[in-house]
């Protein structure tokens, strides 16, 4: 997979494959920002569209120092927050009911978003099957039993354990090579 600056330059030239690589690399991250801030799947999907729409409009504003993951998180958070505020206003009976900070966002937020990006980067380096397995086992919105995971991945239940360990070992290898720790 190419680096972000190369992909952005290719997108500026109108290369749809470069755009698809950016989407593949970051749509999970943007969607997950919205989910972690408490949005529903449908609203989180809208945030993905809004955020990538803004990215399209901003392609010419980046330079070689771009940190696209952090930029996308910032945009996604802003619009998630805006949507939450709108919902809160719709249900609030008293202006004092409105809260200033999104509750899921108040606990050491910078570290949380850095961690999400770091984890997403590590998962991007795995093969798709490993990535999907670990996401289903460890990062799904609702925990799934092994039988459901096996069915989704078309994999015998008995092979989930060994595969999980193999994929975790690879993820550990990728993550420990990056300048970030838990």
């Amino acid at each position, binding site marked *: 997979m190419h680096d972000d600056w190369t992909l952005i330059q290719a997108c500026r030239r109108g290369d749809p494959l470069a755009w698809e690589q950016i*989407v593949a690399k970051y*749509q999970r991250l943007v969607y*997950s920002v919205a989910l972690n801030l408490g949005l529903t799947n449908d609203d989180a999907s809208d945030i993905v569209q809004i955020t990538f729409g803004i990215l*399209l409009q901003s392609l010419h504003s980046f330079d070689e120092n771009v940190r696209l993951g952090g930029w996308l998180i910032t945009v996604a958070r802003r619009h998630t*927050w805006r949507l939450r505020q709108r919902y809160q206003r719709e249900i609030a009976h008293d202006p004092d009911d409105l809260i200033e900070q999104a509750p899921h966002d108040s606990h050491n937020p910078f570290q949380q978003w850095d961690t*999400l990006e770091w984890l997403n980067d590590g998962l991007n380096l795995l093969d798709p099957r490993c990535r999907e397995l670990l*996401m289903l086992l460890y990062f799904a919105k609702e925990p799934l039993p092994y039988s459901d995971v096996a069915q989704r991945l078309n994999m015998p239940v008995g092979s989930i354990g060994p595969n*999980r360990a193999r994929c*975790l070992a690879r993820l550990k290898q990728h993550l420990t090579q990056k300048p970030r720790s838990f």
Partner: protein
Amino acid sequence: MNNKTQIPLEKLIDWLEGWLPADEYAALYKRLQTAVPSQVHADLAWLQSFLALSQEITLSEPPAHVSEQLRQQFQDHLAGQRPPNILQRVAAALTFDSARRPALAGVRGSTGSASRQLVYSADVGDIALNILPQSTSHRVTLYGQIFADHEAYPLHVQLLQTDPVRELALVTTDELGEFTLPELPVTAVSLIISSHQFEITLPPLHLTA
């Protein structure tokens, strides 16, 4: 490394997640208690941190139709079409900065105080900012008001430090478009103001009074 202390990652994760039968669990527990500090302990610590993280974070792919819509969005962009529901993005230009006014002998500054005033103009409205140094610390308070032409308040204000990029504040204005951000570091920032209709981006600013 002592081979006796080597325990496969699979066994460790099974142990942590409670998949092992009681006797195996107890045996492994005993080995871990008596083992000298080793790679096993490092693996165990990593796995414990990973599992704790997995309890806090959700990470999921969006539904497949979202990818298809994003693909279409790119095609529309190439074709010069503006997709529906996309915000109007505008840049604001600085029209006044009290810090750049020439100092006239014997003439007081416009504010008569230590605060710095800035005024920006954009297609969708004007923005007035004030930067006030705090007397007790090397920090500043940024307060201001947004005069939007055709927009219902409140608006949303996000302040980003530019190097390294990180968010310093995200607040909502009151019904008059006013906001206050206290306790800010003296640093280079950018400000983004958003509503349902637009996003205004202010040029980079150094937070000095």
